[in-house]
């Protein structure tokens, strides 16, 4: 079927580089790897430009491929969550202006300790603001699985965040008492 939308590669990069990079970064927890993945995703996009029918289709395609490439990279490199405090101190490889609040940083780091399916569902839900149905379509997973991953991931992350925050406050209080 013919479609009027004419994709512009440069414009698509401008619009979606932040989304693709952030998805890859949060999925892998590795800034350098995330940049490599983002480059691969956009080079793949270049090959598929003719098959994209609309701006929404391009966005959906980019999300799906970014998530799939990140999962492949995780499987290849066996990237795992590292120690929370070391990661926070190192700013996760980010420049100062890219860092969010300390709590935000902790939540991001705790995210990297979750199982990959939980992480994928949470990232798409809270970074991209997708509905469970949209997440299921993006990940090509059954809706029930996505809902379960969202619930479990959220519960697990909340438990970890509460525990780490208690520890953080205790350390802070001890440090200020000394």
């Amino acid at each position, binding site marked *: 079927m013919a479609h009027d939308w004419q994709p512009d590669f440069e414009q698509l990069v401008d619009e979606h580089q932040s989304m693709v990079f952030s998805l890859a970064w949060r999925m892998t927890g590795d800034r350098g790897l995330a940049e490599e993945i983002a480059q691969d995703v956009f080079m793949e996009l270049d090959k598929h430009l003719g098959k994209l029918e609309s701006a929404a289709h391009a966005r959906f395609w980019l999300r799906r491929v970014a998530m799939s490439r990140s999962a492949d990279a995780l499987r290849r490199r066996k990237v795992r969550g590292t120690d929370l405090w070391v990661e926070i101190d190192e700013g996760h490889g980010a420049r100062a202006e890219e860092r969010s609040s300390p709590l935000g940083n902790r939540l991001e780091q705790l995210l990297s300790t979750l199982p990959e399916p939980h992480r994928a569902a949470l990232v798409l839900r809270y*970074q991209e603001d997708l509905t469970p149905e949209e997440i299921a379509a993006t990940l090509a997973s059954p809706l029930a699985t996505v809902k379960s991953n969202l619930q479990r991931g*959220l519960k697990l992350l909340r438990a970890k965040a509460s525990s780490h925050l208690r520890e953080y406050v205790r350390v802070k209080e001890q440090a200020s008492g000394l």
Partner: protein
Amino acid sequence: MDFEPMEDFERELRQAFERRPAPPGLKRRLMEKRRALRPQRPHRHSHFVLLQRLAASVALVAVLGGAVVWKDAEERRKGEEARRQVLTALRITGHALNQMNAQLAARDRAAQE
């Protein structure tokens, strides 16, 4: 310390999981990589060049064909013109001879009388 209720925690997550800016220079590196890979994927370019060559060939054939047809028509027109002039000359000559014959015949008749 705890997150109560769950909505607060979800709000925190949305804030924490905002998109990060892409690394500076990512777009530039991408465009360079794309340019470097261009010659390996020449199908679009070659289609364009092929179409250009085809259009140029069609235009050339049309111009040459037009010239040949025009030349042929011009020669035919000149031939017709020449034929018409010869016929006119012959008609004039025939008319003059007929007049001359008539005058000679009249003179002969007058001499006999």
